[in-house]
């Protein structure tokens, strides 16, 4: 076994690089995380659940989940459409449109929040049209979903796009020669092929939306039970001087993060197998 390891490490630097990687991760991630877990464990299960299962916190998790899910689903729809249009059609401004898709990724979320809050506010360019319809653009769940959609859009487009690019159009042509119409070809041939990447994109967008804080801070208004999202509960606890509450909720969110990460890995593994 020793020999085996030795021979595998033909290239030098194993100890150095792995050591540095682990050291870095320890300082940045593992030690702070264990400090938090340790402090959280100090409050016992009772204290933990009291904060985690507080009705207001539960309402916030629900909103986080539902709004992120909604945003991710809407992005699946528009993101796939965008990917399709960008890959399959040539039209003036295509490259620009392609570049614009990355804007939410590059734009700091605070800026996105500030701008969206202004745009969808009652006096904003979009908000003033929504108000007469009785839709509040900000300080509403609508606003939360819009902001989450904004920040997570690139994930769907950029996951579906490469798959669509490598998709062999011969397959579609084959379907056409067999008499399938365009719609049938799309739904029976193209969509099933894209499905794994769409699901991956959905999962990534969902995870991104679930963790979002910056833009929401500007648009949600943090109305308890209505527009408060999970990270805001945490901020609320910090603001209220309830460090224990903040730590309990942070731990809970951390656990959820790990679960989501695990699920995404599973989905990706599955998608890869499916594609092969």
């Amino acid at each position, binding site marked *: 076994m020793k020999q085996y390891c030795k021979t595998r490490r033909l290239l030098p630097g194993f100890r150095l690089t792995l050591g540095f990687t682990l050291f870095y991760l320890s300082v940045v991630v593992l030690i702070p995380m264990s400090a938090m877990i340790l402090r959280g464990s100090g409050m016992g299960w009772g204290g933990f659940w009291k904060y985690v299962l507080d*009705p*207001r916190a539960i*309402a916030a998790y629900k909103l986080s989940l539902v709004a992120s899910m909604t945003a991710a689903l809407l992005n699946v729809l528009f993101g796939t459409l965008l990917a399709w249009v960008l890959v399959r059609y040539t039209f003036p401004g295509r490259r620009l449109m392609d570049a614009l898709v990355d804007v939410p990724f590059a734009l700091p979320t605070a800026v996105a929040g500030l701008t969206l*809050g202004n745009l969808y*506010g*009652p*006096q904003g360019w979009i908000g003033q049209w929504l108000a007469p319809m009785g839709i*509040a653009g*900000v*300080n509403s769940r609508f606003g939360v979903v819009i902001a989450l959609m904004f920040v997570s859009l690139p994930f769907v487009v950029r996951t579906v796009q490469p798959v669509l690019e490598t998709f062999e159009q011969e397959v579609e042509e084959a379907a056409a020669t067999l008499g399938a119409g365009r719609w049938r070809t799309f739904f029976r041939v193209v969509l099933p092929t894209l499905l794994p990447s769409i699901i991956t994109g959905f999962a990534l967008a969902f995870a991104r939306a679930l963790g979002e804080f910056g833009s929401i801070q500007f648009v949600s*208004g*943090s*109305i*308890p*039970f*209505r*527009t408060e999202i999970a990270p805001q509960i945490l*901020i*609320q606890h*910090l*603001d*209220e*001087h*309830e*460090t224990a*509450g903040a730590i309990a909720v942070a731990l809970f969110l951390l656990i959820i993060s790990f679960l989501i990460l695990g699920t995404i890995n599973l989905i990706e593994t599955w998608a890869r197998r499916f594609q092969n």
Partner: protein
Amino acid sequence: MTWIMARIVRAGLFGSLLLGAMFGISCTDPQRVSLLNVSFDPTREFFGEINAAFQKNWTATNATTLRIQQSHGGSAKQARAVIDGLDADVVTLALGHDIDRIAAETGILPRDWQQRLPNRSTPYTSTVVFMVRKGNPKRILNWPDLVRSGVQVITPNPKSSGGARWNYLAAYGWARRQPGGDDRSAREFVARIFRNVPVLDSGARGATVTFLQRGIGDVLLTWESEAHQALSHAEGLSGEIVTPSESIVAEPPVAVIDRNARKHGVLPLAECYLRFLYTEEAQMIAARHHFRPQLENAAMKAGVHFPPIVRFSLAEICGDWQAAHAAHFATGGWFDQIQSQRKP
């Protein structure tokens, strides 16, 4: 080619590390004294002016340069930051309770801090007023108007905002002081107001932004000082201030954080800074920012007119902060109960 490139990359990496190290080292100048004032949200402009005035006095008598740093945020949050290591030399927060907590949890200042300066360490006060839309379309004139259906009230979250606690207690106090009013009726009144609150910002500033810039709500509960401040600064946005018949005396106290100030060698300076707040010059600045000065004729001298209002104190309606906090704002307190009733 690559040999050169490798060298460049290497040099670049080390260079940027070095640069980073240089940036990281803050310049310590012995000729420069600095003081950190950790304050709450609506005092930004006020302390901007106070600091300028204090600095002017300072440079007149000292060779060293003085730099006063300001940190603003929700009052409770600022207190927590100080507890968790924010190196404040003085704190000027929205309510005594927050400073009490610093004293209780860390011991970096004595528990009897409030006895060290005049007027229970409160150089100026304020009161809670209403801000309404231009022309007061909903005709909101006094507290009972806030519970009418169809009136949206904007106030920050009392759990995080010191200002909002005064808002809450003003409403509570008004109802309690009504004929036949008692704790129960007052609680019910507050609950009815909060049923009309569509947004709970975490700080006073956030609430003002919500009301003025985002145009949400019909009436904003805010400090008198903050209302004037907002109206004079909010560009192109307008509102009107309505002063109710009665309101609370909002007392934002100040304190030196002894241990930090001693550590930084600025203890006398910090004390001097806070005492400066009681001088006529500072009291006039306070009046100009619509904080009600403790010095009697400072307002007149500053040419600021404060509308008459009957003001009651915290002590009159629920004793001290300890009691108020336990009854209303602690986890599971009345405010939490109101919130869970709101649950749809």
